[in-house]
């Protein structure tokens, strides 16, 4: 609706060699350590698609999300939204294009404000419409996310987790952004409510033509939602491809282990023995070479010396090599 004149870039989001380094500790007496939370990440998210982002806690997913939202500046690299760099864009302009939905519906809503205030906040901050028009829009939005009218006058404390997440979705979408960062939006919810929220997210995506960056550790949810998938390990993307590519033929040993450890409700299969070492590495002292090699079941001597680059997999099928369907993997033996 709003982007009628803007030439539409086929990519909603593009990350170019994005890095974020934190300095940890460091006082007068001891040296500070550096933590490469996000390390040289490049990713292209086509418009209208759902890009899943999976990885363990501490792999840099959330830092990446914060950089996209403009909450923390990148140490290096660029973020392009609709083909335009955001590094020097002001926060308000950015906010029109990209909005977050957070994990914990209990801490993502200010407990001292009514739902109408929370959902209407974006309109007030950006001075869109008169107070009356804003109220109408808020009402429409609440209805759209499946909340009753009287919810507008309630406080978050009076709502269930699922209802709160609906409020958070309404707040994120009321300004019609192009891109929504969903940071584990259902992991704090019960399964029966999770299904309601996932359905809602899919419906709204079609309704508004949204692009999602969907961060999750639940592979079943990601497989259900995502068109493409990127797997992160220790701040780097180790594999990226379409849902079919990743789920049917994962190339990276870490992706394979992740898929193997997803427990589907099928009795009789037992718990898989995934054969990863126990130790998660200290992110401030990443292993040499391939960061995954200490846990990798198929590691070779080269893996500890040489870091593999994220490169395109040679595809035999012509269809897969088409633009955007390129799969990439960072492993010497993929």
């Amino acid at each position, binding site marked *: 609706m709003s982007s009628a004149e803007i030439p539409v870039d086929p990519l909603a989001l593009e990350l170019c060699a994005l890095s974020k380094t934190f300095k940890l500790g460091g006082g007068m007496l001891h040296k500070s350590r550096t933590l490469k939370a996000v390390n040289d990440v490049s990713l292209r998210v086509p418009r209208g698609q759902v890009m899943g982002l999976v990885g*363990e*806690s501490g792999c840099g997913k959330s830092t990446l999300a914060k950089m996209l939202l403009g909450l923390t500046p990148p140490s290096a690299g660029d973020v392009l939204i609709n083909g335009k760099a955001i590094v020097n864009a002001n926060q308000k302009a950015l906010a029109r294009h990209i909005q977050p939905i957070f994990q914990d519906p209990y801490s993502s809503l200010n407990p001292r404000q009514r739902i109408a205030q929370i959902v209407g906040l974006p309109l007030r901050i950006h001075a869109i419409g008169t107070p009356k028009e804003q109220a109408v829009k808020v009402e429409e939005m609440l209805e759209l996310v499946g909340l009753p009218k009287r919810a507008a006058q309630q406080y978050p404390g009076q709502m*269930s987790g*699922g209802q709160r997440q609906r409020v958070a979705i309404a707040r994120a979408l009321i300004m019609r952004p192009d891109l929504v960062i969903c940071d584990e939006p259902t992991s704090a919810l*019960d*399964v*029966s*409510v*999770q*299904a*309601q929220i*996932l*359905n809602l997210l*899919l419906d709204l995506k079609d309704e508004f033509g949204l692009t999602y960056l969907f961060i999750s*550790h639940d*592979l*079943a*949810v990601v*497989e*259900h*939602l995502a068109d493409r998938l990127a797997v992160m390990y220790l701040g780097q993307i180790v594999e990226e491809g379409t*849902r079919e590519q990743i*789920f049917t033929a994962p190339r990276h040993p870490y992706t394979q*282990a*992740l898929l*193997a*450890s*997803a*427990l*589907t*409700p*099928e*009795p*009789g*299969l*037992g*718990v*898989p*023995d*995934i054969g*990863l070492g*126990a*130790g*998660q590495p200290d992110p401030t002292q990443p292993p040499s070479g391939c960061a995954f090699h200490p846990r990798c079941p198929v590691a070779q001597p080269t893996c500890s010396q040489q870091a593999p680059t994220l490169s395109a997999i040679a595809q035999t099928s012509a269809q897969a090599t088409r633009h955007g369907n390129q799969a990439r993997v960072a492993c010497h033996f993929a």
Partner: protein
Amino acid sequence: MSNLSSAERSTAPASPLLTVKQLRVDLPVAKGTLHAVRGIDFHVERGEMLCLVGESGCGKSMTSLALMGLLPRKAQINADCLNFDGVDLLTVSDRERSNLRGARMAMIFQEPMTALNPAYTLGNQLCEALRRHQSVSRKAAHDRALYLLKRVGISAAEERMRQYPHQLSGGLRQRVMIAMALMCEPDLIIADEPTTALDVTIQAQILHLLRDLQQEFGTAVIFITHDLGVVARIADRVAVMYAGEVIETASAQALFQAPSHPYTQGLLRCIPTPGKTLPGSRLQAIPGVVPNLVEKVDGCAFCNRCDQADELCHTTPPLQTVADGHLSRCHFAHQLSNPAQLNAQEVTL
């Protein structure tokens, strides 16, 4: 498989390790009394893995705390029977209970950091867990701790014994907790969401380990979780809880193949399952919310969310036997358990 072997091991009609009948837990809250657990029945056989599964607020954690005697002081606990291997847990003295805890019943919590004392080394805590209950030498305790740490897959165990809890990652801490629970070779371990805080790869490893050890030591485990994937993979038997009641009990196979309560069926339809649900399609959600347990619940607690409820559901459904060892608290359990009927329903839905 494991079900069979454990059944074979316990010869003759041995009584169950734990029998719970009509357990009720009431908690005073600001607006009245929260009926957190509303008369539940279940039993645990020796050496079996029973999963208590349910959503938040269904009373599964309250049940485990009631068994361990760890409920808040103001909570009221009632039961017709709460029998742990001949000991009545309702009337047991504090002293006997603390002898029981750790020695014969152990607990593994969701967040191991709160269960481990940050001021003592791991070796210290492991040995203490054993020496509190058994008169063994320092050396013997140390050896057993070392053996168990190695057994739960901790490398450089000798070194780890001298470390403090904060020096370990979440996965390692949970391994230490498992070793600690096993120190006295308890008959029953209650594990309350032990892998919920962990990453998927670590979760798979811990579950694998727990299942291995449980079969090796013949320990019975009550595994509390909300994750049906986990349940399917590790449980011998499953008890599904909803709104403070056990609404369905069955072997894991039977529960997932022929669920006989609308809530269980709904839960199984909710989760996207690769190969079964079409990616990007709408999921079957359970509409509505859980009833408020502060007020009295009349009839079937699930009837306000159930698409098959009728007049009959305003009366309390009896626990019906659907098949051998498969119980369901639904008026229509028999119709629901019929697979042909179920398929027909799925087509219409």
